[in-house]
């Protein structure tokens, strides 16, 4: 069978299309998701296919949008809630972290909240400080939530299928700069399991753990470094909550050096958590402290001249790998 390619965003649309076809309980709610098909074109064609009953345009009311999802999910539906930019979580976080995430536990276990919250995350489009953030660290620190960060079209579809079928609230972080990136995507419905990292490239000198779009950069850096004789293993956790520490630690025990990369600012980012867990699990195998590559401690700047320097990229990742392999 010829491999079919889809863009990252179309893989999302296809997953949803098929999931809605398979299960009447799945519906989509958010601003401009129906009539317009989503500002990132994520929902193109779904209104035509499924109608206004299942594709719901809303007022600009993120708290009510997420709350609608929570209430509908608690009643057994499977809402896919879209709040556009991840930064907008700040206006509706309560419904996600104090309601959806805690409900099952607080209620004593009876309720389920099978809601998917889709956000467009990440920088690189000169969208400025309030439209570019990667806030996975807030969410992964919140018991009750799951957080997926697909790095390829293939994983977008597979993780979305898993997310919609999951009985817990899941945040799907789509990376804005990857929306047009193409990749092979099977036509049928398939799941990419949560909490299972993918080893995208095997290597022996250093393990690079990368989140979201940084996986693409890490893979590119690995190519460059191979030519220099540095063998890089690239690990993509795919979900950060749950986090597959076992695979990362296993890799670390072989390579003895770990670099963690994400778009979010380094301080307090998940790089710290991964570093702490890996160090704990593989302390005696590490030749150097885990090296974190993230954004500097500043809001995301607008000007491309600044934003390019702000974001980690293949160059900085390669530099980190050279540095850590030099150390020992």
């Amino acid at each position, binding site marked *: 069978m010829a491999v079919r390619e889809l863009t990252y965003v179309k893989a999302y649309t296809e997953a949803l299309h098929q999931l809605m076809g398979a299960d009447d309980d799945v519906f989509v709610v958010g601003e401009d998701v129906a009539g317009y098909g989503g500002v990132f074109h994520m929902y193109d064609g779904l209104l035509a296919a499924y109608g206004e009953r299942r594709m719901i345009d809303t007022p600009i009311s993120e708290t009510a949008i997420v709350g609608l999802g929570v*209430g509908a999910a608690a*009643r057994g539906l499977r809402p896919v809630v879209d709040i556009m930019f991840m930064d907008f979580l700040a206006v509706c976080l309560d419904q996600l972290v104090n309601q959806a995430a805690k409900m099952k536990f607080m209620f*004593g276990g009876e309720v389920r909240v099978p809601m998917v919250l889709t956000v467009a995350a990440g920088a690189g489009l000169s969208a400025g400080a309030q439209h570019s953030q990667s806030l996975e660290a807030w969410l992964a620190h919140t018991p009750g939530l799951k957080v997926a960060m697909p790095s390829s079209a293939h994983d977008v579809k597979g993780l979305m299928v898993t997310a919609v079928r999951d009985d817990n609230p899941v945040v799907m972080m789509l990376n804005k700069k990857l929306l047009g990136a193409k990749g092979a995507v099977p036509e049928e419905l398939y799941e990419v399991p949560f909490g299972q990292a993918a080893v995208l490239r095997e290597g022996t000198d250093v393990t690079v753990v990368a989140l979201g779009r940084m996986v693409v950069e890490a893979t590119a850096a690995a190519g460059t470094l191979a030519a220099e004789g540095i063998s890089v293993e690239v690990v993509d956790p795919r979900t950060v909550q749950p986090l597959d520490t076992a695979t990362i630690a296993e890799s670390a025990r072989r390579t003895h050096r770990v670099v963690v990369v994400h778009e979010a600012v380094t301080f307090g980012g998940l790089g710290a958590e991964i570093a702490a867990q890996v160090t704990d699990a593989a302390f005696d195998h590490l030749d150097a402290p885990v090296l974190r590559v993230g954004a500097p401690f500043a809001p995301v700047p607008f000007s491309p001249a600044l934003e390019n320097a702000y974001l980690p990229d293949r160059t900085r990742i390669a530099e980190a790998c050279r540095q850590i392999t030099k150390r020992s």
Partner: protein
Amino acid sequence: MEPVGAVATRTDRAPSVEGLDAASLLDLHRRMVRIRVFETEAGRLMESGDLPGFLHLYVGQEAVAAGALATLTDADQITSTHRGHGHAVAKGAGFRKMFAELFGRVDGYCHGRGGSMHINDLSIGMLGANGIVGAGLPIAVGAAFAARYRGDGSIAMTFFGDGASNIGAFHEAANMAAVLQLPVVFVCENNGYAEFTAQARHMRLDDVADRAAAYGMPSEVCDGMDAVAVRQACRRAVDRARAGEGPSLVEAKTYRYYDHQGVKGLRKPYRTQEEIDAWKARDAIELLEARAAADGVVDAAEFARVWEETRADAVDAIAFARASPLPDPATLTRDVYTD
């Protein structure tokens, strides 16, 4: 807002008991008495140091929960507030599991994980109290959405205070429900205060109900000390919802007898004794009993039996709760996720 004057006005509007039969009146009465007894006992237990955590008692407001919830079935969903015991009891929650939860025991509604502010009972459509002011409103809108999506004929109802009507979640939920024309009833329990702040200092309207116009939503004000009046107003709103005519807002003017939290005023008086006395003079339970007796619809002995049964129920439930084991710390991380 001048509460005492307001009471006088509302007395004029108060409907008589006529039109309701003995069964309906006893139903309202029983719901109110169950709340009163539960809350009085809970307050006592808190005063004696038996209960951990916060306790926002519902005493004084019984007519609202009773009147409103007499219009729903178990299939209908409600969301509630920090002051949620009354809604749970009136929706049909059992004393045993409720007391056990307040004691933090394993047989409680939340198995000791939630406490007073998270009591819920999915089997009777009680989608939970809530510790975050206003947070229950959008969730009820979601439940109403699900009801319409499934076309199962059920509706949702959500309770909130005068103070809660100032938070963004109220505004967004009301507008969302109106735009989507969802089957949900917004019941504002206006007890005149947000914690220790009088209504006149937190909004510039006398009636929260007037805010419904901002969403193109019908509303009405009723006497929250008169369970019959609340029942009638909510019935109209519930009928609209069931008929597919969208959401409504019902405001019930009421009063809490105890402090915002706990039983006694903590330190600072923020209400006058005259005001408290004026409201207590129109106590919802006494009012119903007196009217029913005057109209000759219900025999006083029947009311007495309700009190008796309910008190016995509380005694049993408290004993049950005290005997219930503490939750096992080994279960701490259970039920964070479904799998």
